[in-house]
């Protein structure tokens, strides 16, 4: 599939090139070119972002909108101390919630997708509850689950749960019965079906759901961390810095939270690309 012709380097082969198969050489070259292009894109995006920020700061000329070069050194020094710990706490909550939601929503979604009766009973309920912004339950959850770690993880997991549930359910329902039958005819029982069909079929669906909802999850985390905790980026941004008018530090916190979102998004996106390679198979 990666049989690119050697457009450049049209001269005679070097000794190194002659020893490696031409296919390997072009594969490496393609990979380098792709990552080079991505790096260029990233640099471009960052430059435009910095330019807009600077323009906004220059236009406003207020304490609440410092210049990027005032924030960046604060960010770097804060990341070596407090801010890093808050970021780790927030990241931990998101990851715990992700694991919890995935582990529960995937089997439930598979069950709903494969057992029509269950789906008929529960789908209206899911359709009713899914669109409710789960953040409104924050006060209830705080009271019931206490002010500790559990309530925050639970709230985020609740949001991710419905996203994953719905996508996995639809994916499982779209598995054609012929596929299941022919794998059963190879000897697969329930366990092997799960291992060789349901699991690989739902993995990309889980990742799609996570990619779509990781932004919402972090937004909700930001709110949740303003209550009854002394750890996390939400606490850092609102209580520690904003309310004390330390705006450079506040922006360092905002940068950290953005970075957390970006890293999670890119990680999920990369995984999704690897796992979902086959979806693009028809296009090449």
């Amino acid at each position: 599939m990666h049989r690119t012709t050697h457009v450049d380097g049209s001269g005679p082969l070097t000794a190194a090139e002659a020893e490696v198969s031409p296919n390997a050489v072009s594969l490496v070259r393609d990979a380098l070119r792709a990552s080079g292009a991505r790096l260029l894109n990233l640099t471009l995006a960052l430059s435009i972002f910095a330019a807009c920020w600077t323009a906004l700061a220059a236009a406003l000329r207020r304490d609440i909108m410092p210049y990027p070069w005032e924030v960046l050194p604060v960010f770097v020094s804060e990341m070596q101390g407090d801010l890093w710990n808050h970021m780790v706490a927030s990241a931990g909550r998101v990851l715990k919630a992700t694991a919890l939601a995935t582990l529960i929503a995937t089997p439930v979604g598979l069950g709903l997708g494969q057992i029509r009766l269950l789906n008929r009973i529960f789908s209206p309920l899911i359709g009713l509850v899914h669109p409710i912004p789960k953040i409104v339950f924050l006060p209830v959850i705080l009271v019931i689950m206490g002010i500790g770690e559990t309530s925050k993880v639970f709230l985020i997991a609740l949001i991710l749960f419905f996203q994953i549930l719905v996508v996995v359910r639809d994916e499982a329902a779209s598995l054609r019965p012929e596929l299941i039958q022919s794998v059963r005819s190879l000897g697969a029982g329930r366990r092997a079906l799960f291992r060789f069909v349901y699991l690989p079929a739902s993995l990309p669906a889980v990742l799609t759901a996570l990619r779509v909802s990781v932004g919402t999850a972090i937004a909700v985390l930001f709110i949740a961390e303003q209550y009854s905790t002394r750890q996390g980026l939400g606490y850092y941004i609102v209580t520690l810095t904003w309310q004390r008018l330390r705006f450079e530090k506040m922006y360092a916190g905002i940068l950290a939270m953005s970075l957390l979102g970006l890293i999670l998004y890119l990680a999920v996106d990369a995984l999704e690309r690897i796992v979902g390679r086959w979806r693009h198979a028809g296009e090449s």
Partner: protein
Amino acid sequence: MITIENLTFRYGPRAKPVFLGFSWHVAPGEAWSIIGPSGCGKTTLLMLIAGLRRVSRGTIRVGETVITRPRPETGLILQDFGLLPWATVWDNVALGLRVRRFYGPDGKHAPRGQPPPSRKEARRMVEEWLRRLNIYEQRDRFPGAISGGQRQRTAIARTLALQPDLLLMDEPFSSLDAPTREDLQNLILQLRAEMNLTSVIVTHAIEEAAILGRKILVLGEPPNTAPLIVDNPGAGSPGYRSTVDFLDKCTELRTLMGLAH
């Protein structure tokens, strides 16, 4: 090889039976076609033999086993190939062998007695079948990126890699164009002779039934109560397609199905 006694099958407790007191026998090494109009129950019969549907009454025995679930030594090939879309051609062909290694020789999911192939052995077998079916070059591609003929070859390789003694096929070539279909029909004839397989192929195409079946079971409007069998000894011999015998046989089948005028 297959013994069906007094089979009754209906899709629901109050539905009209598709088979009613139906008995049929297939001897080892025989090559059968099942033909009939749509809705006659030919696919249902194949699914019953494959163990993917349960009989309402009566028994189906394949080899020594009374069929209540898929039997590991039976191979099944479907019209829509049933390939895993997220797995490469190689991984699809290896799937059956992996399922066997997953369970071990438990007699339920994999044949008892013979240990499942080791990883290395399985790799060799997969490669051999890919080469035999001429899809080795496609091994790293996904089903979505290869032709229909190549997909069906992948499905055939996956099934035959498990060395079945009985091969069941449900309209395996219906969705393929004519040259590919003829090509694969010839391939099946060859493989069947080589591997000494018992085979049952369900088809709605009269010509296909006559090319692949040395015996042809004609089903009609349900309920089917007794088998109507046409002998077709010429099937499988080289050049049978262009003989007068073949054309006569097709005419005979057409008449039996109530199509000739």
